[in-house]
């Protein structure tokens, strides 16, 4: 239970689930998406296998390093919009990644003190960083759930300890749905999340494109699928738009992430092959 603006006297602790053994679950011998992503962002929390996969991808699609930056910037702009203009005070950010600058709770809580943020990721290195570093100040709540996106039941049940699902929630799915292939029905997963939130809630998605820089992106996907623990399925604009079926799209609709309400013209022109959009549940 959360009441907005009232600091929790005993901030909740994200301890590892019972039976969790970090020593056996941190596997650095295979590339993992959060660490590869960190590498592309110029971070230093990555390992040899991650750098190898990251370099292979860069060779196929050199603009990936701009793509991931554009994606982070899209995250910051959408969270700011939601907190400032849409009055959203609760965020469910699935696919957190390794903390970097402008994390969701920092953007949200600076725009709207008292905002609650629940992070979800399934990478043990992310867990390590999130437990230690993604703590919020006294103006809001931040918690972390170690779970897979496919496990929507558990995500929603655990998130309910921090978020009030009778009030609007923004569901943030930043560059994560590409790890759910068509056979696993990503639309059903998004549908299950949307079914749990009330009218006035928002869905924000960014998704690597299959129909932008198509040849390079296809080659990158092929390479990543050989080297990375999480496989990727890039999607076309209509396929990404389908996630928003039944929602009211916020202007400018489904666009390249760098063109979603950019702060500057330069930002709008930066390279990057991800579709992004925001929809409101009526």
């Amino acid at each position, binding site marked *: 239970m959360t009441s907005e603006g009232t600091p929790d006297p005993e*901030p*909740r*602790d*994200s*301890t*590892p689930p019972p039976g969790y053994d*970090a*020593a056996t679950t*941190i596997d*650095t011998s295979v590339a993992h998406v959060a660490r590869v992503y960190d*590498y*592309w*962002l*110029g971070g*230093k*929390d990555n*390992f*040899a296998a991650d*750098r190898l996969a*990251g*370099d292979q991808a*860069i060779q196929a699609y*050199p603009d990936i*390093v701009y793509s991931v930056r554009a994606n982070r910037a899209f995250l910051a702009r959408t969270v700011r919009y939601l907190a400032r203009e849409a009055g959203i005070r609760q965020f469910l950010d699935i696919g957190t990644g390794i903390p970097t600058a402008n994390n969701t709770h920092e953007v949200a809580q600076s725009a709207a003190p008292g905002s609650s943020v629940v992070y979800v990721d399934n990478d*043990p*290195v992310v*867990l*390590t960083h999130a*437990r*230690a*570093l993604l*703590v919020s*100040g006294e103006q809001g709540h931040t918690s972390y759930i170690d779970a897979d996106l496919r496990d929507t039941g558990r995500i929603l049940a655990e998130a309910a300890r921090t978020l009030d699902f009778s009030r609007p929630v923004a569901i943030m799915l930043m560059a994560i749905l590409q790890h759910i292939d068509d056979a696993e029905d990503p639309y059903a997963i998004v549908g299950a999340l949307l079914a749990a939130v009330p009218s006035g809630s928002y869905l924000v998605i960014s998704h690597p494109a299959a129909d932008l820089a198509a040849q390079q992106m296809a080659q990158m996907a092929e390479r990543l699928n050989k080297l990375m623990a999480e496989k990727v399925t890039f999607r076309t604009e209509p396929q990404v738009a389908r996630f928003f079926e039944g929602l009211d799209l916020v202007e400018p609709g489904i666009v390249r992430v760098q063109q979603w309400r950019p702060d500057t013209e330069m930002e709008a022109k930066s390279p990057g092959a991800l579709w992004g959009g925001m929809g409101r549940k009526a």
Partner: protein
Amino acid sequence: MSAVQPSDELPGKRAVDEPRGGPTVLRIMLGNQLRRLREAGGITPDEAGYEIRGSRSKISRIEHGRVGFKERDVADLLTLYGVTDEQLRASMLTLARQANTPGWWAKYSDILSDWFEPYLGLETAASLIRNFELQFVHGLFQTEDYARAVTVLGYGPSATDEIERRVSLRMRRQKVLDGADPPRVWFVIDEAALRRPIGGRQVMRAQLKHLLEATALPHVTIQVVPFRRGGHAAAGGSFTILRFAAPDLPDVVYLEHLTSALYLDDRRDVDHYMEVMNRLSAEAHTPVATTRFLKEIIQEL
């Protein structure tokens, strides 16, 4: 494109045992960096030597960190290597300056060992400091009384003047945390370091309270590994990982021994220590639980 980093060509482990003469590691780091940039630009040592009015052996000495840097030489080399990124140029020139000019610690040179001095340069320059400590509270968070007790343990009680100089150096070091742009500090402490009453109960109680206060700082993260989560990943003992803001500077692992220290910047070594650090952090109490735990220990002391 900062994500593309040559990774596996740095020299391996090296004990810093060279004679006194400036912050060795800063030189080594800068030298490494210059070599990588030269090689990336396909420029021979002869060509580089010519550019700075010297020989290939001068380039070799520079790249191995064996000599001090003239700022003009570094600037000329960066230009020759096609480095135009202002941030990178600025951070490398700053490093060159730090590698040459005596640091704030120079006035403590009488008590500083050759192998510890570079650490002070690195600690002062770091943007992130991660540490695992088994025995003691880390120097950056020691109270004066606790620092005195630790110093007496290390050096014996005889030379009072020297002890006080060492304590004063340690207090001076802590100023890095008060600056305008302090490093992010992420420390994992074994419960043993908090239970052992260094300097007696009074001193230890004050020390733990000081540590508790530090946990409230926004740039400080402290996690305790409790006894009951035994068998943690750091069988090797205490260590520190230092990270620098410049994207192209590698992390450095610092390992301190009684009479020497090891500075590792080979990517394979750093990766290994980073893995262990991450495991330790995952096994440790969260920062929130750590503050509760600290309060309990203070109660029980």
